[in-house]
């Protein structure tokens, strides 16, 4: 098992090549190059699968990693180190993430070739899609925060382009701007955090940061009155909040559905939003050192619950999914905050599978029915059987039904949150984290089944109402409904097979310990899952005195300086944990509670929308529904208060400073000074330079001229006479 750069770099480079070719020659290629983009992602997938196989089944140690680096630029002088490295950092976590990103992105590309067929933006879409994927793969491979930031911004640009790809629609343009500007707020903080770390450590390599934490280089450093670690961790987490759409920077994600549905799938599942969670996980030791994990947990809890409540009243199928993404991202952030590192990461993976599938299913529905408002849908089960099957599997997964993947990951996060909130002796106010988490889990089950029931069950309203008129509704693809009959879905490699493949991975046993044979049928035994063994929070002490490897050198398995810890040697938590019993009971309670809550949510949805024996929210709590439909007024708050009052007021203040102070005193004052200077200079110029210098020279020349013109008569023979006389006089004086 040898790793050269040549066996890692194609993961990132092949989509980049596809991007370049499609960007410049896409129009000339058959099908505008969509096959090329899909093929390039498949190449990435093959290389990722090899790495995944080596890392996961080759039984590397938990903390085995490959780190290849070269110095990009070096501004060091003296003992102060300031340099930026570029390189590849590959550990178990990146191996799993690479496989997920490339695999999910490949299926999304495959689906897009069907979905975007005959669309006017087909070619353009397949320019940005591979670039987006390559940026995410590059971000996962990065070994430092600088290159991470570069890929982070490329993704920001791609999301902007994909959301606003229908650039003739004003709403799409607004949504893309909103996404760009909102994430920009977070990005500024991320950059600030990176620069702060660079200032202190002289390097932003993960390895160097971990080593610095272990060596205590942060001790006693402070900035702006708070500890340096807190400042840097907070800045980086604010960046993650922008990208992962956490409260209060969440407003862009629901609008991001203005783009084509597969683009949304890519943004919501495999790339973009997981980048924020990714950087939080990579910088987890810094977050712990900065003591902001409680803040992370609270932000995650607010997002998880708040987004779930909004999702219960949305009528657009994609809006429900968008808010569910927000909510699930909240769970990942809770996981980071409460210290269930690998469960948070596992939720990234499980969520990517089921959310990509949900969005692609929604795309399949929209493309087949040309309608995305749920009240106008219904009874689609008969027409779209494969889509129904896939979407139902994903809904079961996201709702946290046992034996599905969402249960495995979310339950672990909730169990840890329960322990964190009630049993670990923290501030009692932090009990809000598990409470909001469990409430959000119940709501998740409710709104997801509400979506399923409204879309696939009940009567089909499309089929017999208004054919051809009545609902001239533009869906996200810009189609106009022309009232055609819904075609029965056939099994198609590009339409349903990606959904069905993704649906397979919503089963829980892939992620729980069942696959590796440690906990067959053991639903609550979280200790022996392969995720648990392979992924652990970075042990910073191990990075001290880490020897760098040259970029061109081959890595072999034997070069690992750490002992191989095998699956069977390690049991759950490393080291003796006095609270292990408590933790175990918290997990058991959490699992039982979340099963109960999930089924309660499903039952409620069933009663409301199938049996119709319970009135829906709208009729029961009209006031609350209105608040939720306004999304708690965040959009209005940002526009009316922050922008109209705050920003415009600030602008007026700045204008007053500019016009009142700067213009009046500085600019006009400078003008007055200039006027005096001008007068002095003019006098000097007229009198000294012109009168004395220039005219004086003329007068002097004139005087000489009067004398010289007598001699210079122009008669050459006169000159000869003069010459002879001078010579004669010379000889005369010589001789006498």
């Amino acid at each position: 098992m040898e790793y050269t750069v040549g066996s890692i770099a194609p993961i990132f480079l092949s989509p980049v090549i596809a991007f370049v070719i499609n960007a410049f020659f896409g129009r000339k290629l058959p099908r505008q190059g969509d096959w090329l983009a899909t093929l390039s992602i498949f190449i990435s997938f093959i290389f990722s699968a090899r790495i995944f196989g080596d890392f996961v089944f080759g039984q590397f140690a938990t903390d085995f990693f490959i780190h290849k680096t070269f110095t990009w630029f070096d501004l060091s002088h003296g003992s102060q180190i300031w340099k930026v490295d570029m390189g590849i950092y590959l550990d178990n976590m990146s191996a799993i993430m690479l496989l997920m990103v490339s695999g999910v992105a490949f299926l999304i590309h495959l689906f897009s070739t069907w979905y975007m067929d005959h669309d006017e933006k087909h070619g353009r879409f397949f320019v940005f899609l591979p670039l987006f994927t390559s940026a995410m793969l590059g971000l996962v491979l990065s070994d430092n925060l600088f290159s991470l930031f570069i890929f982070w911004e490329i993704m920001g640009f791609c999301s902007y382009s994909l959301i606003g790809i229908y650039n003739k629609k004003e709403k799409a343009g607004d949504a893309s701007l909103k996404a760009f500007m909102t994430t920009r707020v977070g990005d500024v903080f991320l950059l600030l955090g990176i620069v702060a770390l660079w200032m202190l450590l002289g390097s932003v390599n993960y390895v160097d940061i971990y080593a610095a934490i272990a060596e205590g280089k942060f001790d006693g450093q402070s900035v702006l009155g708070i500890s340096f670690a807190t400042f840097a961790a907070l800045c980086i987490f604010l960046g993650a909040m922008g990208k992962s759409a956490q409260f209060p920077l969440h407003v862009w994600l629901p609008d991001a559905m203005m783009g084509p549905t597969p683009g949304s799938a890519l943004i919501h599942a495999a790339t973009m939003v997981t980048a924020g969670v990714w950087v939080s996980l990579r910088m987890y030791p810094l977050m712990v050192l900065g003591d902001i994990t409680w803040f992370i947990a609270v932000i995650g809890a607010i997002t998880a619950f708040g987004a779930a409540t909004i999702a219960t009243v949305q009528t657009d199928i994609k809006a429900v999914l968008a808010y569910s993404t927000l909510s699930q991202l909240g769970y990942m952030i809770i996981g980071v905050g409460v210290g269930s590192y690998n469960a948070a990461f596992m939720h990234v993976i499980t969520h990517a599978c089921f959310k990509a599938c949900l969005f692609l299913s929604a795309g399949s529905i929209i493309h087949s029915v040309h309608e995305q408002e749920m009240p106008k849908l219904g009874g689609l089960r008969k027409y779209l059987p494969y889509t129904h099957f896939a979407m139902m599997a994903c809904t079961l997964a996201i709702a946290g039904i046992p034996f599905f993947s969402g249960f495995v990951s979310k339950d672990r996060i909730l169990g840890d949150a329960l322990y964190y909130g009630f049993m670990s002796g923290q501030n009692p106010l932090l009990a809000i984290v598990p409470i909001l988490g469990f409430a959000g889990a119940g709501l998740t089950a409710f709104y997801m089944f509400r979506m399923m029931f409204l879309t696939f069950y009940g009567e089909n309203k499309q089929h017999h109402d208004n054919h051809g008129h009545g609902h001239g509704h533009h869906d996200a693809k810009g189609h106009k409904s022309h009232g055609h009959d819904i075609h029965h879905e056939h099994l198609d490699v590009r339409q349903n097979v990606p959904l069905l493949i993704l649906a397979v991975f919503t089963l829980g046993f892939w992620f729980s310990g069942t696959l590796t044979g440690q906990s067959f049928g053991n639903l609550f035994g979280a200790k022996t899952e392969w995720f648990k063994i392979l992924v652990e929070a970075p042990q910073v002490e191990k990075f001290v005195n880490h020897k760098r490897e040259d970029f061109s050198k081959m890595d072999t398995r034997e070069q690992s300086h750490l002992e191989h810890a095998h699956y069977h040697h390690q049991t759950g938590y490393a080291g003796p944990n006095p609270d292990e019993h408590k933790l175990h009971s918290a997990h058991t309670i959490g699992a039982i509670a979340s099963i109960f809550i999930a089924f309660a949510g499903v039952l409620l949805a069933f009663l409301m929308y199938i049996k119709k024996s319970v009135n829906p929210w709208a009729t029961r709590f009209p006031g609350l529904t209105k608040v939720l439909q306004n999304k708690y007024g965040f959009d209005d708050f940002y526009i009316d208060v922050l922008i109209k009052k705050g920003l415009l007021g600030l602008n007026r203040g700045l204008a007053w400073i500019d016009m009142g102070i700067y213009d009046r005193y500085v600019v006009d004052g400078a003008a007055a000074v200039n006027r005096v200077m001008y007068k002095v200079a003019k006098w000097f110029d007229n009198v000294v330079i012109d009168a004395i210098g220039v005219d004086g020279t003329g007068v002097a020349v004139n005087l000489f001229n009067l004398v010289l013109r007598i001699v210079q008569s122009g008669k050459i023979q006169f000159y000869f006479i003069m010459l002879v006389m001078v010579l004669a006089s010379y000889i005369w004086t010589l001789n006498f």
Partner: protein
Amino acid sequence: MMSLGSYLIISLILFVIGLVVMLSRKNIVAILLGIELILNAAALNFVAYSRYVTNNLDGHIFSLFIIVVAAAEAAVGLAIVIRFFQIKETIHIDEATQLRN
């Protein structure tokens, strides 16, 4: 027997004739001829002194130089005269007063 004195007298006669021609004639070609006579007087002087006083070849070489320079100078001078004639249609020396005033 020829002596140094007779050479010097010939040379002096040539020089004076050349000087008079140069100063008195108004024809530019005549003035150039006068200059040639003066140069030849000088060359004759060099050869005479070289033969009777120093008794080496320095003077001969110098007179060769003078002949070469005189040829070059005559070429340039005659070219000027031709151009002058083309412009003014005369070779009268007093017409060459364009730089005046």
